[in-house]
């Protein structure tokens, strides 16, 4: 082809001109601009809707601390949880878990409708059913058992024993004919037994931390979530301002120990011994309140026992603490105007040994600090639940007279009201038919929180009929046959007695719905009433209320109005608490396992950034977990470098290692830390979930899988604080 000069020129100018024209036209500029605007409004990047802002006050029930919250809403969406100003427990402050509560409310682990199991137990396979079907099925099952005379084989596990919903569950069991109402024990229960034994009262402990001027903490995680988190944080800040001394006794340097004026690393498990060692000094040097103690019942016996057994030289080996330290501690404690000794390990979610609790409480008693400003208070039950005694039919009476499955209240365990830790062994050791034919579970996750979870799960698998009221698909809900999902905590109206707030006066809170229920859920109170009605006769008659809301309003009576307005009420009630010293009948709890075979002591530790109870960690909380605790799905255990070099291991930071206890073994990684006593391995509590969502499941291991229960000889509670362990190399 021949291109003439003219043709070429015209084509050339056409191309050049066209290009120039296009470039100069608005088109490319407009397109470029549009593209960049598009990147600012990608359809897959959510754009939160604007709207009217409002605040709803309520009470947080994620833990029993009883903090007031103020939830910011935009239209009908809850967008932020903040602390409620002026609330007696938290006055505007809020903890990390409370802040992230909206991730639970709107989270993927919510159970959206009633469910019926279709797979194997524990497999987590369910199908949706209607509320009518679900309630009918449960009522029928309960009706059948009752008609077969097996009403006493129905048990109930509730997260707490306080409040109207647990009491409705208990009432249901009573009129139905079963004594087996159980609650999840915490240090509150150990304290309650202590107060009963040493003062003869039914009471919760109160700690006047705001007015104390010397704090001696036996492993209590003051800023780890012990008691009511925010209140303790505020107290800790006030102590810093007032230069009030905190002494922390603990084998691992927790946050509390780091903030304390003095950290005394004592051998784990020797806290009770140390407390009595201090008592020895106080008694020897006459540093106790004679006017209070000398006249107290049992004081001479107590003095004798302590004087004979707890001289510092006798306990130095057990505690690993020198005589001088104990001496100066005793002097400082006794010399303070309002010294306060506290115990309950970490967050206090496990009861602990009676021996230790009573030893520590004895220090407060010796200091004459019971029911005094800056001391320990015996806080009476607010007693606002005063329903008419239900009428029991013959079946119910028969059922109620049969012994409890867990043995609580029996001759062996006279002090405990319930002993959840004894339930799994009772089920597994029974011959023939399972002693629990049906189990109701509300606000509790025993398949995760109880020691030796493998055994617990085995026991749960044997129970023929498990009903869960959980709002979230937790480990225990996975073992349920029927799930009757409760409204999530921000969707429901419920009383929230702040029994763990530790104030000197009882406080009742009212948790109010912040948003309307997001899913097809039902208030457990309403579900219980519906079940009772379906069971008919005397059972139904014991529940005369139309709805849970009506029940609550009637129950609260004259308190209803002010509670509804303020969300809290302080009950002006106190209780006389005469002092009596105990005879030495409790024994320390030792770590299970042979010392030779297992050279280390494994000890779980609590972190404020890891929720470890019924509520699983939220994504935000997990995000704050340091990489020295969790990396990918690997859990890190803390160990002193001195212990890491021994044997043939020579561990380095991050080394993978097999951690073995008498209960099992798991692959972990090590975090070398100078903040822990040699010979002790610390493992975080709150990881290793198998249920929930991808933001929590499969991360790390559950320490309860490696630790077995240790029944306390005094109370019968599981008082385990650790277990012996060994490390061995692992092939990767």
């Amino acid at each position, binding site marked *: 082809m021949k291109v003439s*000069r003219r043709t*070429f*020129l015209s084509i050339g*100018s056409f191309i*050049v001109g066209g290009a120039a024209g296009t470039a100069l036209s608005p088109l490319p500029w407009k397109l470029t601009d549009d593209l960049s605007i598009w990147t600012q409004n990608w359809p897959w990047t959510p754009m939160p809707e604007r709207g009217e802002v409002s605040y709803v006050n309520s009470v947080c029930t994620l833990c029993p601390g009883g903090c007031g919250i103020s939830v910011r809403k935009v239209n009908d969406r809850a967008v932020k949880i903040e602390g409620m100003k002026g609330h007696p427990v938290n006055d505007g402050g809020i903890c990390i878990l409370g802040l992230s509560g909206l991730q639970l409310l709107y989270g993927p682990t919510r159970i959206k409708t009633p469910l019926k199991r279709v797979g194997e137990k524990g497999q987590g396979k369910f199908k949706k059913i209607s509320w009518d079907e679900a309630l009918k099925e449960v009522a029928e099952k309960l009706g059948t058992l009752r008609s077969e005379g097996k009403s006493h084989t129905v048990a109930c596990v509730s997260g707490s024993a306080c409040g109207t919903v647990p009491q409705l569950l208990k009432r249901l069991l009573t009129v139905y004919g079963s004594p087996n109402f159980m609650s999840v024990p915490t240090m509150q229960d150990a304290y309650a037994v202590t107060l009963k034994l040493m003062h003869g009262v039914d009471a919760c402990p109160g700690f006047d931390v705001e007015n104390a001027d010397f704090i001696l903490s036996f492993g209590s995680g003051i800023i780890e979530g012990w008691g009511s988190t925010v209140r303790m944080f505020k107290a800790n800040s006030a102590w810093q301002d007032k230069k009030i001394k905190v002494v922390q006794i603990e084998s691992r340097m927790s946050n509390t120990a780091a903030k304390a004026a003095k950290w005394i690393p004592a051998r784990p498990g020797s806290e009770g011994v140390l407390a009595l060692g201090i008592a020895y000094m106080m008694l020897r040097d006459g540093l106790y309140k004679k006017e209070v103690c000398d006249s107290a019942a049992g004081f001479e016996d107590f003095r004798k026992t302590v004087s004979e057994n707890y001289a510092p030289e006798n306990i130095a080996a057990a505690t690993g603490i020198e005589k001088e330290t104990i001496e100066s501690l005793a002097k400082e404690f006794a010399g303070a105007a309002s010294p306060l000794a506290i115990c309950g390990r970490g967050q206090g979610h496990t009861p602990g040994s009676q021996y230790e609790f009573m030893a520590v409480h004895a220090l407060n008693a010796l200091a004459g600090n019971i029911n005094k400003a800056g001391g320990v208070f015996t806080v009476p039950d607010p007693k606002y639940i005063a329903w008419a005694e239900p009428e029991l039919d013959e079946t119910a009476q028969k059922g109620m007279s049969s012994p409890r499955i867990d043995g609580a209240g029996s001759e062996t365990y006279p002090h405990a009201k319930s002993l959840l830790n004894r339930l799994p062994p009772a089920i597994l050791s029974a011959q023939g038919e399972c002693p629990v034919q049906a189990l109701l579970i509300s606000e509790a996750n025993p398949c995760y929180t109880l020691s030796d979870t493998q055994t617990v799960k085995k026991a749960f698998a044997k129970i023929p009929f498990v009903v869960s009221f959980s709002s979230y698909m937790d480990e225990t809900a996975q073992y349920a046959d029927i799930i009757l999902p409760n409204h999530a905590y921000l969707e429901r109206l419920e009383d929230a007695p702040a029994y763990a707030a530790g104030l000197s006066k009882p406080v009742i809170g009212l948790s109010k719905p912040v948003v309307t229920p997001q899913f097809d859920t039902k208030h457990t109170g309403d579900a219980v009433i519906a079940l009772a009605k379906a069971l008919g006769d005397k059972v139904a008659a014991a529940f005369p209320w139309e709805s849970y809301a009506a029940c609550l309003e009637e129950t609260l009576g004259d308190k209803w109005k002010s509670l509804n307005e303020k969300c809290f009420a302080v009950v002006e009630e106190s209780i006389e608490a005469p002092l009596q010293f105990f005879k030495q009948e409790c024994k320390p709890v030792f770590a299970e396992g042979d010392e030779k075979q297992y050279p280390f002591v494994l000890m779980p530790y609590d972190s404020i950034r890891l929720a470890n109870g019924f509520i699983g960690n939220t994504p935000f909380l997990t995000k704050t977990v340091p990489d020295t605790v969790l990396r990918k799905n690997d859990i890190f255990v803390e160990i002193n470098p001195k212990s890491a070099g021994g044997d043939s291991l020579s561990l380095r930071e991050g080394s993978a290692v097999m951690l073995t206890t008498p209960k099992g073994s798991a692959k972990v990684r090590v975090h070398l830390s100078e903040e822990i006593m040699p010979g002790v391995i610390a493992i975080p509590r709150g990881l290793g979930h198998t249920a929930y969502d991808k933001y929590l499941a499969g991360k790390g291991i559950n320490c309860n899988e490696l630790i077995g229960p240790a029944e306390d000889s005094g109370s019968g509670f599981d008082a385990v604080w650790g277990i012996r362990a060994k490390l061995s190399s692992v092939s990767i």
Partner: protein
Amino acid sequence: MFPFIFEWVWDMSHIVFMGGLWYALSIIGLGMTYCLIKAIADTAGIGIGGHHHDDHH
């Protein structure tokens, strides 16, 4: 880049920097325009620079 964009400030930094930029751009632009126009003219046989080529490369 242009005085009508809101970041623009009439200060020394902008004058020096953008001055340099527009100076360089102008030279490049004008140079290319010259080459193109001259090439068109040369092709059409008009001849601008006067002298004829073939003495190069």
